[in-house]
């Protein structure tokens, strides 16, 4: 174990961890947006919209995230989409995790007893009101933990953008492995930083879950 080397290179990893955090936050926000839209589409009254929602989930869960990322970043310019690596990373990963979140959010909504919706409708609420005031407040509580699992996977998934040269934790580790020939040390620094990010996120989600839990 080369402690001296670790002390010399760790500032680069701290900087890279900050990029990983930014990627994680932006990807989570985009993923939740795509997930909410996807779940709405999958639960729509219109068969065409339901089909589009199902196709979205099926394609993005059925193919590797790396391929989706390459398709967007390298193939995008051919269809007029020019993005820098960071933007492509956020959009590619966000739309990908959104497909998983679609299923999580949809699962939370359909887990609410049918009687709740029927009662709300009987009281004269519109479909939207029933969803907004009766179903979603209950469903949202159920979703927090499973969405936390999605976010945990997403944080580790941000490593993929190293393959399109975004200077985040994994890219930095790879670069220093190449220049120092000390893979274990580099793995250890970046691993500890990943686990710190995941640990803090996990505690945050557990806290949120406790705050809003009814039973």
């Amino acid at each position, binding site marked *: 174990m080369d402690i001296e080397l670790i002390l010399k290179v760790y500032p680069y990893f701290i900087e890279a961890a900050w990029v990983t955090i930014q990627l994680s936050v932006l990807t989570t926000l985009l993923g939740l947006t795509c997930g909410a839209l996807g779940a709405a589409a999958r639960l729509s009254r219109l068969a065409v919209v339901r089909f589009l929602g199902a196709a979205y989930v099926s394609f993005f869960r059925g193919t590797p995230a*790396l391929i989706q990322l390459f*398709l967007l970043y390298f193939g995008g310019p051919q269809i007029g989409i020019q993005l820098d690596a960071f933007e492509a990373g956020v959009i590619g990963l966000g739309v990908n995790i959104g497909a998983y979140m679609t299923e999580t959010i949809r699962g939370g909504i359909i887990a609410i007893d049918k009687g709740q919706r029927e009662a709300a409708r009987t009281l004269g609420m519109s479909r939207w009101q029933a969803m907004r005031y009766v179903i979603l407040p209950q469903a949202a509580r159920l979703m927090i933990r499973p969405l936390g699992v999605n976010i945990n996977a997403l944080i580790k998934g941000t*490593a993929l953008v190293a393959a399109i040269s975004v200077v985040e934790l994994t890219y930095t580790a790879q670069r220093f492995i190449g220049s120092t020939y*000390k*893979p274990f040390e580099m793995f250890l620094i970046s691993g500890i930083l*990943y*686990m710190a990010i995941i640990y803090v996120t996990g505690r945050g989600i557990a806290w949120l879950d406790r705050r809003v839990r009814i039973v």
Partner: protein
Amino acid sequence: MGLDFSVVPKYLDVIFLGALWTIAITVAAALLSFVGGILFAVIALYAPKPVRLPFRAFEWLFMGTPLLLQLFLIYFGLVQVGIDLPAFVAGVIGLGLHFAVYNSELIQTAILAVDRGQMEAARTLGLSRGQALRRVVVPQAVRDVIPPIGNNMIALLKDSALVSVIGVAELTLSAQLAIGRTYRPFEFYVVAALFYYVINLAMEAVLRRVERRIQASR
């Protein structure tokens, strides 16, 4: 620069060969992760403390870090200690170990869920602890977690794309090869995605059959 899929047929044989390698690496890593998962679960639950604690740390480290980082560690780390593995083998070991840890979590829960009476009965019949685990408890636990392990294996198929980064000529790298010759990234990544999608569908179909069979055997 518009899209032009007419260049694709010329490289289909390269892509197809890549798909075969993807299937090979997925099957090999899946087997390793299955056997490894059982082994890890037994170690995590039953090994003596000096073995168990460092092992838990290893599991924790593997679950908390990205697969890509682990692949770099294994590929470059083994070279550093003088073991020069072909990229394919390093890829199988990396993917296999990563998913073995996830499978081990599932199997541990399942082992703990097997009725205590099973172990007691086996011991009463004169089986040693190891025998009782191997012949009575673990087989029942494993049967219970085949469906979630199957889901892990489908995730493994998609994550196998990552080994292209350490130079394994599977589906993703084959697509990149064709792109290098034709400068048509969009077309070839779409083709690669289609191949993955079809393999994914096939795996899901197999998994559903296995699930039905397990349900029937109960």
